[in-house]
């Protein structure tokens, strides 16, 4: 937090730290617990996670920029309605794009592409950050957060794909001797894996804090 | 014959055979007596004598300063050695009068009032009870005169004389009932007179048939009813006893008088009788000295203020390595830190246990077996309470009724995880009180 508080760090550094913090310190999934629905639903494989993540990157950067551009002219009462319209427009664009060029992936992600609209990260960010900061900073922030989101999704999808299908991005990684764990592809597997990922994150944070102490 | 009972409760090994058939003996006078000036619930007394004073047996040495209090009398004649803070069986240090007895035997009793309750004025009896410093002898040590003057809007219709003695090991009340039934009956009638009750019931557990026989012989069935209750701990707890005998439930946070009942211990009845009939203040009581830590368990007439050490000698000295010295019974008694603590008005027994019996290693988490729930006589969820206290969630303790717990120890006794439930509950009670007080501020 120190970096955001102290005033005169130059913009370059600041935007870098804004970018970086989305990966660990303010990871949208692991720390802020936002955007859990797509995280759990689409991560049956790493590629699904990646596609979803990239879709979010696009929607989020796009809408963050627009939101921060128009932030001053939108009255508070219609803020949410305006913002969701902007976001939904971007989402529809992604959706049409996927349907036109990547039909299989579009099917695999199912209704979770449209759900990006209400995905809590985007809305949360749009309001919390983009509506208060300059275009440049919002852009950097959106990129950082959405890339953090993507990385997390790929990671979760990777674990589930490896254990559930023996493959990673479609490539076989575990030998025939390993019998796939079907549960990993089912809802319980998603919840449990993400739960343990969160636990691991907390554990690492705690250990790091302890180390810092000595 | 119908056995009266209540829901819950436990039946631990009673071990009353150790001392049950031993007649009450005089314990004699020790070298030095320590008489705490606070032997009752309520305001402590102020010293009525000074160091160096010569005093007589029965002379007031602690004066009351408020209504909810009871005076303290000297149990022997002798000299006041000093007045200082000294160990009290309840754990703290309390201002006490330390007396060096002599053998002059000088007495200063009050004037006897008469034998027959029906011929006496209830006001006189009440005054006498007040002056004699009588407190509840069942353990609660609530000043008896306060208990016997209920507010006008709470008429009392029944007096229950509590002869259950449900605590394992203890036999003091049993022996009293067997040996001095007339005193008890007559004391009961006196209390009845004070309270103006319709009915007097003496409740005795079914494992003491000889006591009932004696009581029935001594009393008149028209005045006093003897009932047998099921042998089950805590049958003697007044709320349970009232439920068992009269099927009335004392409201949560309330007192027996809220349902028109007063419960008194047989020892209390005896003390009342003695004070009225002989003018003898409460300076002596019956104490059971028992347990596998003493050679000859038995029952004794003991002067208040006698140190535990002296009693152990009277009971034949110690056997083996002493692990615990408990004042009271094993279910509710208080473990003592030293053998120098004195017997006080509420001490019904001294239980000495060998070391081997009483070291337990740690405790386990609650496995929710619900044994404790089944035995809790007041329908609490002791398992929940103990877990709440363990997690230090004091805010929840109140909503689970921690203050309704009578600390009978049944839950603790049955717990297979050996969880110190009662200690958890006691801790929670303190914390809840603390928090409430802070909130009030």
């Amino acid at each position, binding site marked *: 937090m120190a970096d955001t508080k102290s005033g005169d760090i130059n913009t370059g550094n600041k935007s870098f730290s804004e970018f970086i913090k989305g990966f660990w310190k303010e990871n949208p999934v692991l720390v802020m*617990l*936002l*955007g*859990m*629905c*797509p995280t*759990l*639903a689409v991560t049956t494989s790493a590629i699904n996670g990646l596609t979803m993540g990239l879709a979010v990157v696009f929607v989020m950067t796009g809408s963050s920029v627009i939101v921060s551009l128009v932030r001053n002219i939108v009255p508070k*009462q*219609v803020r*949410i*309605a305006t913002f*969701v*319209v902007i*976001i*939904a*427009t971007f*989402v*529809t664009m992604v*959706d*049409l794009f996927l349907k036109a060029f990547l039909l299989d992936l579009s099917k695999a992600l199912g*209704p979770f592409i*449209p*759900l990006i*609209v*209400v*995905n*809590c990260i985007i*809305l949360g960010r749009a309001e919390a950050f983009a509506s208060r900061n300059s275009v440049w900073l919002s852009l950097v922030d959106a990129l950082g957060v959405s890339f953090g989101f993507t990385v997390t999704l790929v990671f979760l999808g990777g674990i589930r794909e490896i254990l559930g299908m023996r493959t990673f991005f479609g490539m076989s990684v575990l030998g025939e001797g390993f019998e796939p764990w079907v549960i990993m592809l*089912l*809802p*319980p*597997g*998603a*919840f*449990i894996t*993400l*739960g*343990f990922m*969160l*636990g*691991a994150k*907390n*554990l690492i944070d*705690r250990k790091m804090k302890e180390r810092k102490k000595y | 014959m119908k056995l009266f009972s209540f829901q819950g409760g436990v039946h631990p090994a009673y071990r009353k055979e150790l001392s049950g058939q031993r007649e009450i003996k005089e314990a004699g006078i020790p070298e030095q007596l320590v008489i705490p000036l606070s032997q009752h619930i309520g305001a402590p007394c102020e010293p009525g004598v000074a160091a160096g004073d010569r005093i007589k047996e029965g002379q007031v040495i602690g004066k009351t300063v408020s209504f909810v209090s009871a005076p303290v009398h000297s149990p022997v004649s002798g000299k006041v050695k000093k007045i200082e803070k000294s160990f009290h069986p309840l754990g703290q240090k309390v201002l006490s009068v330390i007396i060096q007895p002599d053998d002059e035997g000088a007495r200063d009793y009050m004037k006897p009032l008469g034998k027959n309750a029906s011929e006496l004025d209830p006001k006189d009896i009440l005054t006498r009870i007040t002056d004699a410093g009588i407190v509840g002898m069942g353990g609660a040590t609530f000043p008896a005169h306060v208990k016997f003057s209920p507010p006008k809007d709470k008429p009392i219709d029944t007096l229950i004389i509590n002869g259950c003695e449900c605590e394992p090991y203890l036999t003091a009340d049993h022996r009293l009932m067997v040996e001095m039934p007339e005193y008890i009956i007559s004391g009961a009638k006196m209390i009845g007179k004070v309270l103006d009750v319709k009915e007097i019931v003496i409740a005795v557990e079914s494992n003491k048939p000889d006591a009932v026989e004696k009581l029935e012989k001594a009393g008149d069935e028209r005045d006093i009813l003897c009932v047998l209750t099921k042998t089950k701990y805590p049958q003697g707890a007044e709320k349970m006893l009232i439920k068992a005998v009269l099927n009335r439930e004392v409201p949560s946070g309330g007192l027996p008088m809220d349902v028109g009942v007063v419960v008194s211990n047989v020892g209390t009845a005896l003390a009342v009788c003695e004070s009225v009939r002989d003018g003898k203040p409460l300076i002596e009581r019956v104490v059971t000295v028992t347990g596998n830590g003493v050679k000859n368990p038995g029952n004794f007439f003991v002067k208040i203020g006698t140190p535990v050490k002296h009693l152990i000698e009277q009971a034949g000295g110690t056997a083996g390595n002493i692990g615990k010295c408990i004042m009271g019974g094993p279910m509710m008694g208080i473990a003592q830190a030293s053998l120098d603590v004195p017997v006080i008005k509420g001490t019904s027994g001294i239980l000495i246990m060998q070391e081997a019996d009483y070291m337990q290693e740690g405790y386990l*988490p609650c496995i929710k077996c619900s044994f404790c729930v089944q035995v809790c006589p007041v329908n609490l969820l002791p398992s929940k309470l103990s*877990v*709440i206290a*363990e*997690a230090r*969630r004091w805010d929840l303790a109140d909503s689970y009724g921690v203050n309704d717990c009578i600390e009978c120890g049944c839950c603790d006794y049955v717990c297979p995880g050996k969880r110190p439930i009662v200690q958890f509950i006691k801790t929670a009670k303190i914390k809840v009180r603390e928090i409430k007080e802070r909130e009030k501020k």
Partner: protein
Amino acid sequence: MEVILIFISAVLVNNFVLSYFLGICPFIGVSDRIESAVSMGFAVTFVLTLSAAITWLINRYILIALNVPFLEYVSYIIVIASLVQFVEMFIRKTSKTLYDALGIYLPLITTNCAILGLALFGALRDYSFIENIVFGIGAGIGFTLALVVMAGIREELDLADVPESLKGAAITLIIAGLLALAFMGFAGLISA
């Protein structure tokens, strides 16, 4: 009969939270106390049903009638968002006492996935109006059920010796996984 099956399916078999992964954020956020879980669940049920009704109309009379399917997301979400905002004002105006008792709840559910997800599923499955409404109610009750059960468990675990790093959201997710495991017993209940 069809309606009853839709209801059971939405509550048990295809529970929104546990098998569709919808509305996870409030599920994690508000499942720590039973009372708040119940109230929150009711509020979500209300909003879900209301949006089910409105989006059905939009779908029928704008998207299909005008043949502009690509406006689906935009039109649903703008209507839902504004509607919830409006309803909140409306309720506050008409029932101040009850509203006050609840504290602030409605705003936070304006925009969770469950609500848009419901609209999309309903359109996808081509439900009739009443079917769509029952679907909404079922989804809401299913959400409430999961939320309340989780709240009960979490209140219990508050007192337990849960490993430090798993406390909070991590253990909640794992329990959700175990609940989903238990809910698998209902699979096939409606298709048989």
